[in-house]
């Protein structure tokens, strides 16, 4: 019998040697004439165990990891049998505690299937949402998404159904679906994992969105820092087109939908939806004034649904299992699940999909196992470079859009970056301003000038020049940026800065070291 062996092609798995492990598996199988089929799957999201090697057994899949090329021969010697004595043996994959307690809806298939096999995709529930959507009216699909309570997973948390409803109501014959795959927030990689590990779910979600609002074309804007994701999506779109899941006549329904891929060019601001649209049109990534909303006047001036990868990839399960099923997960006004990304100084970094309501403490200690360095945790930044820095005392905060907003933070795209006690929050606040200055599109003054002034003011605070007055000035500047910026870059940069000052005031009141003074 052919043994199915799985080694991930996810870029993060490759970054610690999965490609060499896969090649070694192939080479040794050939040398020993072993009857194996090597599947290059997405990642299960347990990155501290990558390169993870899984084997299909009578009792389900079992895992070994992290595997080095030199370990592969030994695995063949043991015939990949479940062996609790093997130093790399992790047991049945699904029983690994990190995975076992997750609620994977959007990531249901990621790491399990061959990402480019339509048969595999269908065998694991794929295209069921689309099949149902093809029998429904656009209004009924939009209603299902609205009822599910799905909110934009890119960061802003705007209800997806309301966005879709606005586009549905427009009468223009040309409309677009745009997928924002410009995942620039540090500490996030869920979009990348989906595009590499289960690209058809994104294609299916975009197609359903197209059917819902009456759009025949979609664009995916992928950041250039993700070459693996871009290549994988290119292959997946071609395969879907060949199989009749994209094109002029989707599965014999007579309805058209096709997808084009575009590559970004290293501008963080293009993750802002209107800057992204400008970039897709071939212009500088300058943000647009709103109104008009993209839903009314978006790509090439046409009504446009623009959603993040995870928002769109969550649509198929909503259509497949129904709004009530999805809505049943979560708390308050945050419904469904959130793919959370544990990042930075964390022992067990990876993807945890859980219903809203899970606390930071559970995520960081029960899933993440604490810091990678073993030193005490001092700060976490949630929601990317525009998210707040929280101290240990706020770790019992539940992941919930409203709960985070109440603490002047944001859930954002669900990235959690952990810092140990070596972090200097004054430096982190300075970086937030510096990053804003580097990435500002320059359209509005509070962001363009304010960020540079912010770096200077923080430099003076660090250098102990008139600290009290400069802290007041910084607060005032943050207020101007918050209220006066046109988009979230200038408008949210004050979040990391002010949270650092509020929760870690001691870092802004340190004696000046001689090295720093010179």
């Amino acid at each position, binding site marked *: 019998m052919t043994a199915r062996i799985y080694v991930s092609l996810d870029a993060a798995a490759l970054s610690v040697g999965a490609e060499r492990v896969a090649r070694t598996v192939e080479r040794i199988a050939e040398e020993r004439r072993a009857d194996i089929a090597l599947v290059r799957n997405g990642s299960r999201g347990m990155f501290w165990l990558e390169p993870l090697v899984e084997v299909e057994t009578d009792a389900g899949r079992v895992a070994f990891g992290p595997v080095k090329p030199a370990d592969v021969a030994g695995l063949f010697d043991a015939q990949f049998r479940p062996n609790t004595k093997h130093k790399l043996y992790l047991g049945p994959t699904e029983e690994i505690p990190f995975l076992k307690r997750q609620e994977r809806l959007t990531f249901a298939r990621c790491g399990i299937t061959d990402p480019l096999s339509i048969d595999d995709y269908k065998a694991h529930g794929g295209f069921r949402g689309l099949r149902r959507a093809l029998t429904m009216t656009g209004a009924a699909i939009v209603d299902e998404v609205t009822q599910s309570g799905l909110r934009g997973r890119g960061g802003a948390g705007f209800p997806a159904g309301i966005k879709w409803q606005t586009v549905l109501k427009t009468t223009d014959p040309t409309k677009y679906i745009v997928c924002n795959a410009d995942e620039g927030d540090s500490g996030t990689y869920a979009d990348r994992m989906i595009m590499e590990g289960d690209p058809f779910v994104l294609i299916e979600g975009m197609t359903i969105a197209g059917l819902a609002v009456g759009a025949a074309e979609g664009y995916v804007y992928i950041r250039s*820092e993700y070459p693996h994701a871009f290549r994988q999506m290119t292959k997946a779109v071609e395969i879907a087109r060949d199989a009749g899941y994209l094109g002029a006549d989707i599965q014999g329904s007579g309805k058209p939908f096709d997808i084009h891929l575009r590559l970004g060019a*290293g501008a963080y601001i293009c993750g802002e939806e209107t800057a992204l649209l400008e970039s897709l049109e071939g212009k500088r990534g300058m943000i647009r004034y709103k109104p008009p909303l993209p839903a009314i006047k978006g790509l090439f001036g046409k009504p446009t649904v623009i959603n993040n990868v995870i928002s769109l990839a969550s649509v198929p399960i909503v259509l497949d299992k129904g709004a009530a099923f999805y809505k049943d997960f979560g708390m308050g006004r945050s419904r469904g699940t959130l793919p959370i990304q544990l990042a930075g100084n964390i022992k067990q970094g990876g993807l945890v999909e859980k219903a809203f309501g899970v606390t930071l403490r559970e995520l960081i200690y029960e899933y993440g196992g604490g810091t990678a360095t073993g030193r005490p945790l001092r700060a976490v930044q949630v929601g990317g470079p525009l998210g707040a820095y929280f101290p240990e005392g706020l770790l019992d905060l539940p992941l919930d859009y409203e709960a985070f907003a109440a603490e002047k933070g944001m859930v954002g795209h669900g990235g959690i970056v952990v810092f140990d006690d070596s972090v200097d929050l004054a430096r982190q606040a300075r970086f937030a301003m510096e990053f804003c200055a580097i990435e500002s599109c320059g359209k509005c003054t509070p962001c363009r000038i304010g960020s540079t002034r912010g770096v200077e003011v923080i430099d003076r605070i660090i250098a102990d020049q008139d600290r009290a007055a400069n802290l007041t000035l910084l607060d005032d500047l943050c207020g101007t940026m918050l209220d006066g910026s046109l988009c979230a870059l200038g408008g949210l940069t004050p979040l990391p800065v002010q949270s650092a000052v509020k929760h870690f005031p001691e870092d802004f009141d340190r004696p000046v070291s001689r090295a720093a003074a010179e």
Partner: protein
Amino acid sequence: MHSYSHWDVGAAQSLIAERQDMPGALLPILHALQDRFGYVDTAAVPLVADALNLSRAEVHGVVSFYHDFRKEPPGRHLVKVCRAEACQSMGCERLVAHIKQRLGVDFHETTGDRRFTLEAVYCLGDCALSPAVMIDGELHGRVDPARFDELVAECGKVT
């Protein structure tokens, strides 16, 4: 390692012609030029402007807006180091200092022997395995100074 062609007007024109009818063709064209030549030659600006019925200023404005587009050919190996928060939490600034010293260049510079160009990036999406470095499109996680030196040595084997 990338192998780039020398700047060639004819080749540039055909790359442009193949893409000029795409909706929003400018970024795909600039990427195609940079993939072929390693940078966007200033001589390409009027060609692109003509093809897309834009002013040269508009094309220049786009080339200069995006961090990716280079105006000069890079070294044989392109090293991108992540400096964003997740990598900061794992000490990427110490790695950055090591890399600058090891290669003898600052960011956006190319070594004298034209082997390496060093760039900073803000997030490579490998945030659970920080610090991350990308060399010639290959992603590397958990990179410490010793690992970086190994990677540089591996580049040496293929040049």
